[in-house]
């Protein structure tokens, strides 16, 4: 076994919890930062054998990794293995000149910035601290420090977000010329405070979201971005591939190791999730034990289904060789007739419309256990 070439590092700390967020995150807990950084490195040490000698990507996600105390962040960055792509997620308000310099110095060559929106009233509704000016200033600061690969996150489907708001957000984002853009539909998980507060409004504007997604794709592709994954766009630049190599790893169903509380790994047919409890995570690693984990064994068919499901999110063809066993042939014919799937014999790609319907299309293209195999 050659080992995983992708490493994900989860940093759950945030200055505060955003109402809509469903990631494993913890507000505050500054006193835990250094302990946590050491625990991450301890877990890495325990699992080092699972990694390839040379990594393609390391990704620090959160939470807000840049909310870490500077000392803890430095310890962590110094202790992580090198990789050709090293991404750190940041919230605009955390980006100071000192932080930007420290990141560049530590070899961080990609920064993913959570802008979400440029409309103060929508940011307030989301419970975000940073205002539109913070985003602009953060990018300026990062550019000044030498960052040349910046990604911006935008949200659409925020309660009360009108077409004009979305257009303004796209204008603002494009004006900042980020190398990469992620555009996510706001998902209100049932049962959350956010869903309770805004559920009715979200349901009402569900139809408008179709227009929003169309609009985003239209405008970004017209502005020189490649819609390379369902929710992701990379600036087209001669000589540089600005897609997120780390995330491409997920969508191409590569193995990856994830460390940190609540982090997920997929390696050699197993998927495991670390315990999502700070205390239990810290205590285990301070005893130099692997943290408690939930383990899921991925059988062959499941692996193939995931390969197809993830691959169809991309604009590149998915090879059919090997996945026939989980492919619904009748569905394939039907979707080809409907112009949702382009089939080239050896491989398939979703058409533009097919990608906008990617969830439903891939659900039906996949054969699940219990589906008739005769189809």
């Amino acid at each position, binding site marked *: 076994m050659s080992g995983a070439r992708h490493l994900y590092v989860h940093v759950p700390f945030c200055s505060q919890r955003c109402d809509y967020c469903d990631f494993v995150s913890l507000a505050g807990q500054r006193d835990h930062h250094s302990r946590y950084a050491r625990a991450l490195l301890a877990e890495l040490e325990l699992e080092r054998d699972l990694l390839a000698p040379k990594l393609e990507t390391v990704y620090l996600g959160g939470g807000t990794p840049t909310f870490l105390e500077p000392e803890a962040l430095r310890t962590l960055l110094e202790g992580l293995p090198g990789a050709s792509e090293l991404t750190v997620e940041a919230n605009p308000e955390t980006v100071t000149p000192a932080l930007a310099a420290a990141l560049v110095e530590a070899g961080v060559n990609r920064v993913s910035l959570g802008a979400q929106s440029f409309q103060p009233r929508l940011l307030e509704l989301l419970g975000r601290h940073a205002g539109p000016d913070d985003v602009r200033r953060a990018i300026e600061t990062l550019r000044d420090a030498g960052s040349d690969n910046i990604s911006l996150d935008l949200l659409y489907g925020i309660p009360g977000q009108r077409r004009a708001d979305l257009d303004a957000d796209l204008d603002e984002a494009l004006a900042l010329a980020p190398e990469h853009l*992620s555009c996510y539909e706001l998902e209100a998980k049932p049962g959350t405070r956010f869903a309770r507060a805004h559920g009715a409004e979200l349901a009402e504007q569900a139809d408008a979201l*179709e227009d929003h997604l169309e609009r985003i794709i239209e405008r970004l592709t017209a502005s020189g971005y490649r819609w390379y994954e*369902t*929710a992701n766009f990379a600036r087209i630049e001669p000589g540089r591939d600005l897609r997120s190599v780390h995330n491409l790893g*997920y969508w191409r169903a590569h193995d990856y190791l994830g460390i940190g509380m*609540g982090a*997920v790994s997929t390696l050699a047919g197993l998927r495991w999730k670390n315990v999502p409890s700070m205390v239990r995570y810290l205590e285990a690693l301070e005893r130099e034990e692997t943290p408690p984990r939930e383990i899921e064994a991925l059988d062959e068919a499941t692996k193939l289904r995931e390969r197809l499901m993830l691959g169809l999110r991309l604009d590149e063809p998915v090879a059919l060789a090997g996945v026939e066993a989980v492919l619904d042939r009748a569905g394939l014919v039907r979707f080809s007739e409907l112009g949702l799937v382009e089939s080239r014999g050896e491989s398939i790609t979703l058409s533009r419309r097919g990608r906008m319907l990617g969830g439903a299309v891939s*659900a039906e293209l996949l054969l699940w256990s219990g589906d008739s195999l005769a189809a």
Partner: protein
Amino acid sequence: MDLSHIRNFSIIAHIDHGKSTLADRILELTHAISMRDMREQVLDSMDLERERGITIKAQAVRVSWKGHELNLIDTPGHVDFTYEVSRSLQACEGALLVVDAAQGIEAQTLANAYLAIENNLEIVPVVNKIDLPQADPEGTALEVATLVGGAPEHVLAISAKSGVGVEAVLEAVIERIPPPSGDPSASARALVFDSSYDQYRGVVAFVRMVDGSFSRRQALKAMALGTEFEPEELGFFSPGMTPVEKLTAGEVGYIVTGLKDVARVRVGDTITTVAEPAAEPLAGYKEVKPMVFAGLFPTDSDAYPELREALEKLKLNDAALLYEPETSKALGFGFRCGFLGLLHMEIVRERLEREFDLDLLVTAPNVAYRVKTNAGTEIEVHNPAEMPPDLDEVSEPYIKATVIVPKEFVGSVMELCNERRGRFDHMEYLSEQRVMLIYELPLGEIVLDFYDQLKSRTRGYASFDYDLSGFREGDLVRIDILVGGESVDALSLILHRDRAYDTGRQLVEKLREEIPRQFFDVPIQAAIGARVIARETVKAKRKDVLAKCYGGDISRKRKLLEKQKKGKKRMKRVGSVEVPQEAFLAVLKLDGGSGGKK
């Protein structure tokens, strides 16, 4: 026992007026059952009945009281089961008519009282629940006395719940109800008034011995079909099965026939002996014809054989249930079932789902239509989709409806009946406060939601009962629904022409809401013949994405997709359109049901 010491009687009442409680008290008082063993309402043996507080199957219990043998024959209390009530009454000489002292006479009180009178029964009027704070025993006694004739003092006042006055009821049974007349020495004749099926013992016939007697190991014969059998057991209920050597004239009991085919001993048939057969059978019953029909389809088409088997078993205990195979293009294989009424339909559906663990789709109910075709033949149509195009004349069943309401709701009831093509017959004040309205209505106008509407427009005060009054010609049309250009047989319906446009429009609107958006535009049309009268479009869906999917999301997203596809498998295909099963019930969800104006 000699005839003069036997009394056979029923208890008849409007629902919830206390029939079962009184039966319980009688059993208790006569020590047929100990307090400890007593479950409330022991005569209702099926769980479902106990839950709904209604009785479906008639049963007979024998008790002893002061040297007399009393046979209490239980009757179902709901409008749909008039026919079963009438069967039970034919086995009796008298009936206790129980009326709630707080409610007064209700529609089923009347219907049951008339049935008893038609059957020449001695009616013993009883006012129940006299201990309720809002009870009006004197007023109610007066109402009841007016109804059945006789003096108000003759009406017994009781509380079945506390037991007050129940002994007097038993005294009245002995004093007022005549003993059975019959000839103990004539050739044996017994009327089968009900039957039940036991998977180990076969058909159990409930009989009323009219003449002569049966002994065990005496070969018997059901006269209608000439079915001969040797009974495995004779007995009576007390309330458990109690075997006896002999059943004699005037008695009520059961015969375990050992027959495995319920059709060979019909309810209403006469049983006699093989050795000394009676010359003439007793007057039987006229067979009831189901008037309400609906398609029953398994939601999972693989369950069709289970559904067939379940219906076969149910039919053994429910003679009124009718079923014939039906194939729907949209819903696949199922059965078109005939019911006595809506409650009957509801009970059959619940029993199928509960006792047989089936998941069913029941189409909107319709009535039976009599159709004269251009060719001059007359046929009965039970399924709107089978209505022939070359029809000359269509008749639909009509009912005579009795509605009893407090006088302030008379206007609302009249309005409702007028909306449903009702013809006012007459109106009568039962008391200063309460009014009885008689309407003639097409049965087709009440099968969907008439009862719900009646209840909601009278704040629950109205009581309702009906009798079929015959078929009458109507200006009826068939509306077909086309989804994606394909006609959906399970959605066709027959309506009065005046209502067709309105209902057609509402129906396509409702379907537009019920049918999820597909990968392409789906037109939904309502048509009369080739003429489209309403149209809507379910616009193609443009977006269905899983917003984000990174390392930590993969398992969850995979499961979401699996669930999404499984959800689709529950849908039915019409052409290439996936239609959720609920959409086939759209007609039940229209405002005002069958299209009544708001």
